[in-house]
């Protein structure tokens, strides 16, 4: 074999110098085997390139446009749950369910303490609708309007993570401090259907922050989540859209 695959690959890619290129171009004319080997290289190249070509025409997600314009600085992403900003954070990786859960949980203890003193009267927050449980009142209001990134810390309902489920609907985990109930609600039609609820551990155990979102809620999250939890900007965008299902 006069020309090895690496040489023919470079020929197919237009990477050879003029002399060798001319030599192979001439050889191909009289050598069908050689011509076929070059053709295989070209076909593979166009198949690989073609597989990803369509990405160029896809609409650009808002979060990437913002990031490209420098609107979303990494330091902002660490403040999603209003923890004190640190002077230098490592690059923000997308948060995993358990990280969100731990962050949300670590806020609960303080909230529970203040809640005892300032909490409003407990009204109906879930009603049966058909065979589903639907959020109402304070809970529905919090699910509709509350952003984890703008949390004050004294809300009766704490929103934890917000994410897109595999069916395209948005889901949000919540904790109602007064009843020590944690749950997961997903947007269906115009309602928040409560997909799972569980009791939050007693305050003694809550110092173990990661244990505060009960396993039942965590597994309800993990069985539905498509990708990772939304960051602050995506959460806000989803709220602006009225929680309409992502395309």
């Amino acid at each position, binding site marked *: 074999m006069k020309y090895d*695959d690496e040489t023919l690959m470079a020929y197919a890619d237009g*990477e050879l110098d003029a002399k060798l290129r001319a030599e192979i171009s001439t050889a191909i004319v009289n050598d069908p085997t050689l011509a076929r080997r070059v053709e295989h290289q070209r076909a593979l190249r166009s198949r690989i390139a073609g597989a*990803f070509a369509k990405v160029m025409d896809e609409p650009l997600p808002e979060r990437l446009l913002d990031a490209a314009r*420098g609107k979303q*600085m990494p330091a902002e992403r660490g403040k999603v749950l209003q923890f004190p900003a640190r002077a230098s954070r490592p*690059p923000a*990786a997308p948060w995993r369910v358990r990280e969100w859960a731990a962050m949300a949980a670590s806020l609960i203890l303080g909230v529970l303490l203040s809640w005892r003193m300032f909490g409003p009267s407990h009204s109906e927050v879930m009603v049966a609708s058909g065979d589903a449980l639907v959020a109402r009142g304070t809970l529905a209001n919090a699910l509709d309007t509350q952003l984890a990134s703008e949390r004050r810390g004294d809300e009766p309902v704490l929103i934890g993570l917000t994410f897109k489920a595999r069916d395209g609907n948005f889901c949000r985990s919540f904790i109602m401090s007064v009843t020590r109930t944690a749950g997961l609600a997903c947007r269906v039609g115009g309602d928040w259907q409560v997909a799972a609820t569980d009791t939050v551990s007693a305050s003694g155990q809550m110092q173990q922050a990661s244990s505060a979102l009960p396993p039942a809620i965590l597994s309800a999250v993990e069985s539905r989540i498509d990708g990772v939890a939304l960051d602050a900007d995506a959460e806000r965008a989803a709220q602006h859209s009225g929680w309409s299902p992502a395309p």
Partner: protein
Amino acid sequence: MTNTPEEVGERLVELLPRLRRFARSLSRNQHDADDLVQSAVERAWRHLGQFKPGASLASWTFGIMKNAWLDNLRARKRRGEVALPEDSGEHPAVSPVDTHTSLWSVSEAMNKLPEDQRLAVAMVLVEGMSYKEAAEVLEIPVGTLTSRLARGRAALAAALTGDDGGNPA
């Protein structure tokens, strides 16, 4: 730097489609790919001071993305990360509607390549970079790039032979 932040921003916006395409060829699914693009452009902004005027912003940003991708892979390995839903392969980098044209299998075959070969293939075959430019972005000699590319191609040809998308090898 003579560029204003607005100019840099607009040039990065222009690069986004290519950055997304490149990321898609490296990642297992669309969400991971866009996360990679986002962390790359955020890094670009943070390290803008290191960008040499006159150099190619595209090459520089692709290099940043390459590093971000490798960092992610290493971090995942360090954590011994359990497969999360987005790693399950249910949301592949190309749309499932493309499976009949076997684009899905291209993505699957890419994912089986060793990291260095996947980068070489992604830069030259997907992004259409010259060997010289790809070697500069990867910070390796052109000869090394060429041999990684040849090995990656051979593996792809073998993996894709016999399915319904053609017979490249």
